[in-house]
């Protein structure tokens, strides 16, 4: 603590500017021995403290994957819980190395904020939940409905757009807090609850009788959630991007946490390249050639991580949907490693 204060005083005194140490996040990370990862304050399945008070989730797994690739140790990560207001400032200021916090990839964020989106860990979108007893089967039947919404979110705007575009009217019932919205919906103060589909599923599982509620099939907005890094350090950006591709590629090639060691002896050249048996793909990134092997060994592939945290067998129970591999009709697609 003393040293830090001294450093600040010195730096302030010398009038150093914030341009110097932009590049070389990898060196800094290697020097300190861990990755600082910005997460949510608790979104189940994505990043939330588990029963042992350890951060877990799909987005946490991404930071763990990068740590595994660099250090061969998925636990070389420290987590900074951030509010949605703080997240970009914390990243720009260098307080965190990766922001993996249910952040929607939008153009203005990508171009204005001095940050770069690495990829899409989860394709989310806004959906609707209604009571089964109301017998509504499609969002197009919702004309005239009272809709519970959290205020000040893109959700509110999306809902207004959707109803206007389909020539329907609705009564917004607006609250400032997610818990209030859910309570209002449960108490019957509105007919429909709308937010991101992943959150709908999580909230549904909290109801006393989840089976009384149904999530409508329509998804009315695009909410691609992905990890973010600072702009201006291409090496670090590429490490993160390829860590994400490695997770997806491993699933596509059928490499899992369980069979990764067998797969080292595979005849498939794509598998051999992924796991570093053939070619030099790690060193240009500043990593070792078995970087992807380490990721799969410690974290598993994308599908395994998905099933572990948000998949149909978890309490959250999200189907793969858009997040299936491209070969299964989804959008998850890794650039070829060659």
């Amino acid at each position, binding site marked *: 603590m003393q040293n830090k204060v001294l450093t600040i005083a010195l*730096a302030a005194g010398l009038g150093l500017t914030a341009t110097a140490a932009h590049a070389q996040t990898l060196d*800094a990370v290697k020097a300190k021995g861990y990755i600082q990862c910005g997460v949510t*304050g608790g979104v189940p399945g994505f990043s939330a403290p588990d029963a*042992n008070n350890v951060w877990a989730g799909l987005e946490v797994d991404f930071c763990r994957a990068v740590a595994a690739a660099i250090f061969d140790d998925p636990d070389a990560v420290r*987590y900074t819980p951030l509010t949605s207001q703080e997240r970009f400032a914390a990243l720009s200021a260098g307080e965190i190395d990766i922001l993996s916090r249910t952040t929607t990839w939008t153009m203005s964020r990508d171009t204005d904020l001095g940050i770069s989106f690495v990829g899409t860990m989860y394709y989310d979108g806004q959906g609707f939940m209604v009571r089964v007893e109301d017998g509504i089967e499609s969002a197009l039947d919702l004309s005239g409905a009272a809709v519970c919404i959290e205020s000040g979110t893109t959700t509110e705007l999306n809902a207004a757009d959707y109803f206007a575009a389909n020539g329907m009217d609705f009564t917004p019932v607006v609250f400032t807090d997610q818990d209030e919205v859910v309570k209002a919906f449960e108490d019957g103060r509105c007919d429909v609850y709308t937010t991101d589909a992943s959150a709908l599923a999580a909230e549904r599982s*909290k109801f006393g009788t989840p089976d009384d509620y149904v999530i409508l099939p329509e998804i009315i907005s695009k909410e691609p959630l992905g990890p973010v890094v600072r702009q201006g350090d291409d090496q670090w950006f590429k490490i993160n991007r390829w860590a994400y591709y490695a997770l997806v590629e491993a699933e596509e090639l059928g490499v899992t946490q369980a069979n990764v060691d067998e797969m080292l002896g595979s005849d498939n050249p794509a598998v051999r390249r992924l796991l570093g048996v053939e070619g030099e793909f790690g060193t240009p990134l500043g990593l070792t050639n078995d970087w992807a092997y380490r990721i799969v060994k410690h974290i598993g592939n994308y599908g395994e991580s998905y099933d572990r945290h948000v998949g149909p067998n978890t309490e959250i129970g999200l189907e793969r949907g858009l997040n299936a591999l491209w070969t299964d009709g989804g959008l998850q697609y890794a650039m070829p490693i060659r």
Partner: protein
Amino acid sequence: MSLSYVREEMVPPQPAPVRTTGVIAWARQNLFATPFDAVMTVIGVAFLIWAIPPIYNFIFPTFLGGDAVPPGGTVEDCRAAGAGACWAYISARMSFFIYGFYPPAEYWRPNLVFLLGALLIVPLLWPRAPFKRINALLFFVVYPIICYYLLNGGVFGLRRVPTEQWGGLLVTLIISLVGIICSMPIGILLALGRQSKLPIIKTLCVMFIELWRAVPLITILFMASIMLPLFMPQGTTVDKLLRALVGVTLFSSAYLAEVIRGGLQALPRGQYEAASSLGLSYWKSMGLIILPQALKHVIPGIVNSFIALFKDTSLVSIVGIFDLLNTVQAASSDINWSSPTQAVTGYLFAAFVFWIFCFAMSRYSIWMERRLDTGHKR
């Protein structure tokens, strides 16, 4: 024969008329004195009869006749229709509420900190305990240093635990204790400075106090956690918890300064003159004569500030520090315990913990006020 016009023996004492004693008289006097009172009483009783049973059923576990799920219950019990508070969830996640993300293998360290704190603070608060001076030195100087190294680690072979992993009640207590201990001397100095005859000191103190009092604590915390990093050179980061600590301390010291200034102004001028006529220096007259009286006058105000500070610590949750309230909020999204009453139970628990600490502070201050009462009461 004797004739007497007055009684020869005393009339035996009779019980007082039923209307003037006992429950009935009390009720007549206090509850049904006028028709309006009677109506209000009936409404009040009806309200209690309407309100209390559901609250009782919600809070108290099944073995006390309520609907709540006692510790040890399962999540299915909590999800069942009509179930009350889910205390099983609180007990299952208790370690998270107390230690946050502190590694379980190292729980002995916060425990030791709690224990040491309790051992040191009890004799300090108990007026008749001996060795006050050493005790105070230990608590105010040695204890914080020990706590820092014990919790943070990195020395004597202790594993380093960065402050991001601290959380729960531990962090709430750290912030409030540091805030209370540090803001008191700063507040006293600011109050004295504001009364100073030296223009620079006076202006600086007035500016400091007015600036910090004029800004909401939330704004200060936001500034510290969002704006500050942007002003600083890349790579230099100040610990997030430290930033919050400094913000909370300075904020509360500005308030304390004004409370203490009230006490200083309440003293008659003669006290200052008497101190000067004894030939005491400024600091001696302040330390021996003025401050002891001034501080005694404003004990309620000071304790009020401390209680406010203790409750305000929950605001650090908005900058992503896991104090007690924030751990409760984070755990309320725990999908393994998701039930209709999960969030409510968490907040009830947090409210109860805060109430215990604030109530204890308030009681202690009342007791201390009575003890120090030297007959100035008006």
